[in-house]
Structures are given as C-alpha cells and as structure tokens.
C-alpha cells in the first residue's frame, strides 16, 4: 500500500511537472550583476530590475506612461518640490534559502534604497569596493533630492531642491528599484554583503533561483506577487551572444523569444511559418553632429545646406533596409511633444550648392566620423558615411571618412577641438523629451565630457528646456518642447538620420508579449501554448 501511495505521489508530481510552463528567453549578454542600482546595461535590467524588483512608480506596459508601482498614490506640492508617496501595503519580500523576511515592504526600504546611492556616508554606498551608481549620479539625483523622509510606515516624502517635471518618470527607471533594508541588515550580520548583488531579493513577479555566468539564469514565479501573477511557472534566460545562433536556437525550439535579430535575417524570419515577428518604432535617434564651434560649421546656413545635400531616404533604404523612419526631429515620433508640423529639409543638391556658394563656401573638405560598432539606432555607420560622402561630393564637398575603435571613438568625439562631424545616436531611458533634448543638445551638456557632440549651445533653446523642466502642466511642457524643436530645425546642429524599428522574433506558441518602447524585455504577461 505504501508503495502504491509513493507511486501515486510520484505520478502526481510528474503530472505537475508536465504542466509547469517554462519560458526560455535567448538573452544577448550576461548581466553585470543583479543589483539594479550600480549598473547601466539594458541586458542587466532585463535580468534584475524587471523580473525581480519594483519601483515606486512604474512604466505602464508597452508605454512610457507612469503608473503607480510600490507607491499607490502621490501628491505633489504647489511649488513642485515636495512629493509625498502613499506606499502599497501587504507587499511581501521574496525569500531564499538564507533569508526569510519577517516584515512586508515599508518606508524604511524606500529610504534605504535611495540613501545608499546618494549618501556617501551610508555604509552600503560602497558595499563592494569600486561600486558606483552611474545612473543616479549622471541624472544628478544627489543634488536634486534634498531629503527622503519617513512620515509613517507607509508614507514617504521626497523634497527636491527645485521643481523637476520628469521626476516621476525618472524614479520609474531601473536604477530606482526598491531593495530590502531587512535583507541588507541580514547580510551585514552574516558578513556576506556581496550577496546583495549575487542573490537578489525583491518584490517583483519572479524570484531569482540561480545564475551561471555566460550560460543561464533561472527564475521561478513569485507566488506572493502583489500584482497580477505571471502565467508561466519558470523563466530561463539562455545567454546566447551571437545573433545568428540565437535565431537557430529559436528555430530549433530551444528558446521561445529572442532580442536583437540581425537586420539581414528579418526577411527569413518573416517567411518562417513557425515564427512571429513583432515590430515597433524604436525610441531612438541616429544623427550626424557637426562641430558647431568650428568654421564654417558654426554657420547655421552652411549646416542647413549640407543637410539638404544628403539623400536621407536612400540611407533609410540602403542601410536600414527600410526598417526605420527618416528623422526630422531630434526626438522620435512615438514620444509625446513630437512636433509633427515641422518640415524636413528637402533633398535638393542644386539648392544646397547655391546656398553654400552664397555663404562663400567653396571647395570645402570635411571629415565624417563613422562608429565601428553596430548600435540599436544604426546598423552600419560605415555604409551610411559612404552614402553621405557620395551625396556631398555632388555639391562639391570632399568628405574623408574616419573611424576609431569604439572606446577611442567615444573619447575623441567628446574632445572640444574635434575635427569633423560625428555620427552617433541615443536610445531613450524614460520616455521623457528632456531625456533626449537636455542630455544631447542643451548648453549644460555642451561642455567637455557632455553628450552634446555638436557642442551646440543656443540660449533660447536651452531656456525653453529649463522652463519645461520646472513646469508641471503637460500641455504647457508640450508647447515648450514643440517650440524647442522649431529652433533645432532652424539651427540644424545635426543632420537627423533615422529612428530605427525594433524587432522581436518569437515562436508562434508565445502569446502576451508586450514590446516596450524603452527596449525592455519583460515576461510577466507571456504565455506559451503546448
């Protein structure tokens, strides 16, 4: 009888195992670590911040709209400098073999999560030697956030040094994930602080199970998740760096979904009856930034004339194979405040030539920098540069194409006396126009080491951005950003190239996957048909 019961229970267990749904994602790279705060790579956030953790505010799935996360609601003071968050109650922390939480998520966790990043005196600021908080620092959070106070267990008040309209979007970003104070204390007591980064404990839809570097990450469904529970039981990241191999794995059924297919494979994927290809306009821009401090590129009319000499549609066709929208503005059309009314400079070599002559520019020779790597906003910079070279030769401009190894390219392109126009791009972090315009084109970022590779500083433009930053009303902000785009177009510090389309190939069995405009891969809503 005993044997029979054992047999029955084994049977029941294997039946349960057969029903367990395991979703395999062929991810591109190993995460840098599992603590979301110190790292910057998108692949790291897909492996840590999104499955395991939550933030006070979250981006609504498939959008860049901000919705309540661990904060149920919030109030903003009249002057826009005080944010009071009401925290969600009954949110359970995850557990693992070494840690069992004794309390739910509360205000102490919020304060700890921010303080350890911004306060150098916090014992957890340097819990691993050499650790830094690059997102927190580069977004100037340490100066923006004056204090984070606990009003009661479920109320926290953030006081800012100035009004900051994008604040709610900023704290929905992965670096602002809320970690457990109680877990940190337990690790402190055990003398194993580095486990904060190795075996994460969060409040998110999935629990971390195991990680083998460069091979596999395993997660299991968090049974106590406060939000809508995931449909799949187990989530596996099969780390597969090569795009061609990822596609072979997808075709062979070794994984269900993959990121970043090679542009050349798109047609094959579309033709495969077993695969589905989701696509979405990317929240990105590829551009060519003139050095606006260098003659004759300091003259907006010359820049405008050069822009008119380049056949943008031909680049989109030849380099992006049509998988992009020609860009006329520095922000993509999927972003709010995109100025639809602006007209792109027409491709007109004759007019361009005449304009250059009118400005007294003849026999111009210039350098165009092409980056050596493929980026999400630019599949082939070299080829793009060659097309530009050909177009510009037709208006009498001689172009020399230069390129450096990626690290050197980033460094040299920032140097103040840089010779030539540099090709580069940007992918949005949080869906706020400020994250494009201020980062890439403001006077503040035109200094040495800033991301403004055109070194373009227009006082009127920067003033509009600063006004928009401290204005809370979305309609007013939209008007300011729309006006800023008009100035941008008149001044032409860049030749705006394209907004590339993002593709996600997946097995036909997959349903419920939602593409994120921010390029995140999240799996709490996916299902697989057997």
């Amino acid at each position, binding site marked *: 009888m005993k044997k029979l019961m054992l047999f029955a229970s084994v049977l029941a267990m294997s039946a349960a195992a057969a029903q367990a749904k*395991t979703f*395999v994602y062929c991810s591109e*790279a*190993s995460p*840098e*670590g599992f603590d979301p705060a*110190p790292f*910057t790579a998108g692949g790291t956030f897909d492996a840590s911040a999104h499955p395991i953790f939550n933030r006070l505010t979250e981006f609504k799935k498939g959008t860049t709209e901000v919705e309540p996360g661990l904060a149920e609601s919030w109030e903003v003071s009249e002057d826009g400098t005080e944010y009071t968050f009401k925290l969600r109650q009954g949110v359970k922390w995850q557990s693992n073999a070494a840690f069992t939480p004794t309390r739910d998520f509360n205000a102490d966790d919020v304060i700890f999560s921010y303080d350890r990043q911004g306060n150098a005196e916090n014992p957890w600021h340097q819990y*691993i*030697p*050499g*650790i*830094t908080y*690059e997102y927190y*620092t*580069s977004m100037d959070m340490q100066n923006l956030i004056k204090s984070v106070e606990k009003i009661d267990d479920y109320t926290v008040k953030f006081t800012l040094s100035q009004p900051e309209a994008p604040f709610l979007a900023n704290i929905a970003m992965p670096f602002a994930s809320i970690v457990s104070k109680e877990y940190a204390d337990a690790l402190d007591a055990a003398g194993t602080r*580095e486990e904060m*980064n*190795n075996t994460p404990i969060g409040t998110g839809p999935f629990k971390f199970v*195991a990680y*083998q*570097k*460069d*091979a*596999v990450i*395993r997660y299991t469904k968090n049974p106590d998740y406060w939000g809508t529970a995931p449909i799949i039981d187990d989530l*596996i990241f*099969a*780390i*597969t*760096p*090569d795009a*061609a*191999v990822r596609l*072979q*794995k997808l*075709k*062979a059924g*070794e994984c269900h979904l993959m990121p970043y297919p090679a542009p050349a494979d798109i047609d094959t994927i579309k033709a495969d009856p077993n695969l589905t290809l989701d696509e979405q306009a990317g929240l990105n821009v590829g551009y060519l930034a003139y050095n606006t401090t260098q003659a004759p590129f300091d003259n907006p009319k010359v820049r405008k004339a050069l822009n008119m000499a380049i056949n943008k549609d031909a680049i989109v066709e030849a380099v992006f194979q049509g998988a992009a929208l020609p860009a006329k503005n520095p922000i993509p059309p999927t972003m709010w405040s995109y100025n639809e009314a602006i007209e792109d400079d027409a491709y007109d070599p004759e007019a361009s030539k005449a304009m250059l002559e009118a400005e007294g520019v003849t026999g111009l020779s210039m350098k165009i920098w092409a980056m050596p790597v493929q980026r999400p906003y630019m599949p082939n910079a070299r080829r793009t540069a060659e097309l530009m070279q050909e177009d510009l030769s037709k208006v009498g401009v001689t172009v020399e194409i230069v390129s*450096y*190894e*990626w*690290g*050197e*390219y*980033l*460094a040299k392109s*920032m140097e103040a006396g840089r010779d030539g126009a540099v090709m*580069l*791009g*940007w992918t949005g972090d949080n869906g706020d126009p400020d994250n494009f315009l201020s*980062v890439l084109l403001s006077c503040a*970022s035109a*200094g*040495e*080491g*800033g*991301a403004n590779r055109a070194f373009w500083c227009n006082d009127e433009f920067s003033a509009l951005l600063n006004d928009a930053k401290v204005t809370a009303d979305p309609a007013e902000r939209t008007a300011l950003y729309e006006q800023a785009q008009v100035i941008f177009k008149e001044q032409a510090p860049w030749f705006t190239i394209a907004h590339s389309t993002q593709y996600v190939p997946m097995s036909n069995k997959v349903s419920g996957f939602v593409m994120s405009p921010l390029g995140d891969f999240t799996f709490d809503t996916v299902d697989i048909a057997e």
Partner: protein
Amino acid sequence: MVRFILSKLLYLVPTFIGITIIAFSFVRILPGDPVLLMAGERGVSPERHAELSALLGYDKHVVLQYFDFMGRLLQGDLGNSLVTKRPVLDEFLSLFPATVELGLCAIIIATLIGVPVGVLAAIKRGSWFDQVSMTAALVGFSMPIFWWGLLLIIFFSGILGWTPVSGRISLMYYFPDVTGFMLIDSVISGQKGAFVSALRHLILPSVVLATIPLAVIARQTRSAMLEVLGEDYVRTARAKGMPQYRVIGIHALRNAMIPVVTTIGLQIGVLMAGAILTETIFSWPGIGKWMIDSISRRDYPVVQSGLLLIAALVMVVNLLVDLTYGLINPRIRIK
C-alpha cells in the same frame, strides 16, 4: 632528470615576469578606458572621470599601478572585475572547467583522428588517400572558425536536427556544479539522460575547435613518419623480414612521435585562441568568451589577471611536454 626539471623550472621565472609586464601593459595600450566605455553615448564629465579613475586606482602613474598589481599578485589577490565587481579568480574558476572540458575533447578528437590519418598518408604516400586527406588538412587549417561553426550549426542542428544548437546541457536539467565538468557532473547528478544531453552538446563545439589542431597534427605526423621510414633502422627491420605492422608500430611510429608530441603540446595555445570564437558561437561559458568581453570593455583587472592565468597554464603544459619529450628521448635530458 632532477637537474633537467630544475633548469626548466628556472626558465619559467623570467618568462613569468615578462608575461606580467605584457599582460599589464597590453590592455593599457588600447585606446579608450573603462570609465568612458561604461558611460557610452551619455558621456562623462572630466570631474566625474577623474573621480572614478581615482576610485579605481587608475589616476596613479602606470609604473606604480604595475607595482600595486604585482604586490597584490604575490599575496594571491588578482583583483576584482570592474564590470561585475566580482573577484577575478572566482570568475576564472567558475568558467575554466568549461574551457578545459571543451579543449580536452577537441585535442582528443584531433589526436585520435590526426595521428592515424598522418601515419596512413605517409605509408600510402602519393595514393588518393594521401592526396585527399592532405588537401582536407590544408582546408581545415585555413578554415575561419566562426564561419565553420555556424555552417555546422545550420546543417546538423538546423536542417538535420541531430545536435542541439548551443549551450552545455539541455535547460531541463538543473543540478549544482560539483566539478564544473558537465560530463562528470551530469553523471553525479543521477538525472536520467543528463549525460547523453551533455555529450550531445559537446560534439559540435569540440569538432569545430579540433579542426585546426587536427589538420596540423595530421600533417606533422605524415612528415615525421616519412622521415623515419627512410631511416636505416627501418630498412634493416624490413630486411630482417619483420612484419609491416611491427615495423610501423614499433620502430617507426615511436620515433616519429617525438615531434608530434611537441606539436600536440603547442596546440594548447592554438586551442585557447580557437576557444574564443568557438565559445562565442556555441554560447559556451568558458574563459575565451570572458576574455573577449573584458577586452572590449577595458576591464583591466580581468584582462591582465586572466591573461596571466592563461599564460601560466600554457607554460605549465609546455613544461609537461618538455618533460614527456625527455622521457621519450633520453638524449634530450642528457643534453
């Protein structure tokens, strides 16, 4: 023999110091630095750059940095990765078994096929077998590994479906690392089918990694055999009426093996180079892929300590080859 070993060991000391200098300076000669690469398109202000460089200890003079590195090295501290913040040695030890497993399989395949093919080609010199096998060896030697690996994946995994595309074992098996060698751990785990799955995953990458060494070994064996077969003692053995298999197996092969053993030993370096590409294609979690990632991110501690560990390993293997060589041929250790 003891003197022979000691003299060989003494040679290792200056070589090792030389390697530390090369490993240390190699990654610093590359343009760009880890701080810039971390910042990417976002850029980093000169103040922040200086702050981060100071935090990482890269604001000091490069010679001081070298002595820091050596000082810590002598205490057994290889530093922490700038990217993952984990100790370099931990990462190395967790990835190394995968590379060894792959490399051993490759060298076994290369030797088991390369030596017999070389011997046969030498005996039947000028025959169709000789010509076909040596042409194949030339093609194999010139094969771009990346392309070859992808070709095999598409054919055997994609079209025929005989082997899995990539990875070390099917994801349905999950057990903790014991030795780090998947073939052994899968047996220890006791899970049904795990060993077979691990073996199936190992086939394609080891064949790809074995290709170049196999070609080199086959050609080397052939030429060594041809030389030996022309020697007087072989002619004498034949004249005595000794059967062909004994002439080849005992008199010729043993003498021909001396340069072949050296060649096999030297292939360890070739394997390391090949492992970088093979591991990337087959998503094989080994040290080749680890090194490449670290170089492109300018992860100084990983590159310098990783190179050092790999170089030390190649040195030890070469030493063992030298010693084996001495065992096979007494004249060498007496010299």
